[in-house]
């Protein structure tokens, strides 16, 4: 139980002249959800495909359930569930027959009809894969990943392009996997998903781990006060009014000014701090619109660590 479900140490992957993964390390536990979070091209899919045995590492070490994904592939495959980013099913195969085929590869699979029912796919059972909606295709792919009762599953962007209902169904399934003791490794660039689901978040950029920890550790449990105004305010005066020091930052979009007030001491953000801010607004004749006390989110951490420039 002490061996991690997944151990990645100093992983390197090159494609020709470009290095997609540059010395990446992290571990994942059983019965926990580990989210690999990063901008497009950060190296998430390369990393996960090396763990799945689809690609070979150029350097470093990967151990899945203590085994090498390439040399121990035969022993490992029955124990690992895989959901690729897209496709993987012949366009003419029907949903239920394909899931039954996947079940027949395993010694004690989940009853396919039961799993279809739990994922709301029963009515689509006889539909060819190409005629399923995007959400149904994703859920079928997810069902295929878990049907063999694996010990570890790799989900590559499991909720990309899903509508809210389908996303909730996927989150329920991931939570159930965790409760059952399965190690779940998923990639996403959906912050809310990582925040809601993950026990452990690994933020990756330019092929290496930038930060790594529980969502609470990463957000530091910090809060701030945000409000917006239709005209600029005197930020310096507001900062001076804060009792125990803090900072005021402003982002201007068109004629909206969005202000973030953060106390230096995280524990200082109580009712009095909020009262100080609103009292200052009242004295300055400023109407604070959309006023709220907000926890710092993973998205804040993500943008701080990976920067704001666009990737492709």
């Amino acid at each position: 139980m002490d061996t991690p479900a997944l151990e990645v140490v100093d992983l390197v992957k090159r494609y020709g002249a470009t290095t997609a993964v540059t010395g990446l390390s992290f571990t994942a536990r059983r019965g926990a959800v580990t989210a690999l979070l990063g901008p497009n091209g950060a190296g998430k899919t390369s990393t996960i495909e090396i763990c799945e045995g689809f690609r070979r590492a150029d350097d470093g070490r990967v151990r899945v359930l203590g085994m090498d994904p390439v040399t121990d592939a035969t022993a490992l495959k029955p124990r690992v569930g895989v959901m690729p980013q897209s496709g993987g099913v012949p366009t003419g195969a029907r949903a239920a027959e394909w899931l039954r085929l996947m079940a027949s590869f395993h010694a004690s699979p989940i009853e396919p009809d039961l799993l279809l029912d739990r994922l709301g796919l029963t009515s689509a059972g006889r539909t060819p894969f190409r005629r399923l909606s995007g959400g149904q295709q994703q859920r079928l792919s997810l069902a295929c990943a878990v049907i063999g009762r694996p010990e570890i599953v790799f989900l590559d962007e499991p909720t990309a392009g899903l509508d809210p209902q389908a996303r909730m169904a996927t989150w329920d399934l991931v939570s159930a996997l965790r409760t059952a003791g399965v190690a779940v490794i998923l990639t996403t660039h959906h912050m809310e998903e990582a925040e809601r689901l993950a026990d452990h978040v690994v933020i990756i950029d330019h092929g290496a781990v930038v930060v790594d920890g529980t969502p609470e550790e990463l957000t530091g449990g910090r809060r701030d006060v945000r409000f917006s105004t239709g005209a600029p305010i005197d930020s310096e005066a507001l900062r001076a009014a804060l009792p125990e020091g803090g900072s005021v930052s402003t982002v201007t979009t068109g004629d909206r000014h969005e202000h973030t007030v953060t106390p230096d001491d995280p524990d200082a953000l109580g009712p009095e701090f909020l009262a100080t801010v609103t009292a200052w607004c009242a004295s300055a004749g400023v109407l604070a619109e959309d006023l709220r006390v907000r926890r710092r989110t993973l998205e804040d951490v993500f943008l701080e660590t990976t920067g704001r420039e666009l990737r492709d």
Partner: protein
Amino acid sequence: MTEHTTGTATAAVADAPTLATDPGLFTPAPGAAPMWRMVAAQAGMELRVMLRHGEQFLLTMVIPVLLLVGFSLTTVLDVGEGARVDALTPGILALAIMSTSFTGLAIGTGFERRYGVLKRLGATPLSRFGLLAAKTLAVLAVQAIQITVLGVVALLLGWAPTLSPLGVLAALALVLLGTAAFSSLALLMAGTLRAEATLAGANLVYVLLLGLGGVLFPTSSFPGPMEQAVSVLPITALASGLREVLSHGALPGAGAFLVLVVWTAVCGLLASRLFRWE
């Protein structure tokens, strides 16, 4: 939309077990099924997908039957000496074999590679050997159906093959060897070219071999050098070999077997070296 009805149904039936209340569903119990069960299941899937595919059914069933019936009943084509159906049937059988083990297999596998199916199957306990075995079984099953259907149609048209036990064995050996040669060529194309190129190439090769390979008439009606050239084609070897056995009651020459063995060896070796799974 199905998507929406499904969503509402789940929400309405609040008492039904959900994923959250039934986590025992996912308690790990990993293990691979026995090899024979995996191969049988995969072969069944391959067979169903092949038979369901409209264009492929046209190519494997409709076209050979139409050619057989059409050219047996009309005299628009000089098919050589003897009763028309006797002269035509061996070549049509060879064409049917080629349509499944070459054209159908190449196109099917090419698109499976393109849609990530081969890669996805690579992550299951089904080994590559198991996948190849399943594809082979499915191809042979389709061919058994083709030979049965074409045989019955030909007999109805008055086909009177000269059959000896040794001749049947020789014909069977030719069919299996032809299947191996065509399948190797199919996998070589599907595993190295883009899916669209495989689609175009496989159809082009089918039409060329149909015209050149002694399917509808013996290649002896070609001028000498051309007859020499086309005799090394796998379709010519299969068609002329089957014609020797079924129409003339003779055993096929070693040349036909040699041509098929060489095609199998060369394409099989290249395919095993060059095949890319994604």
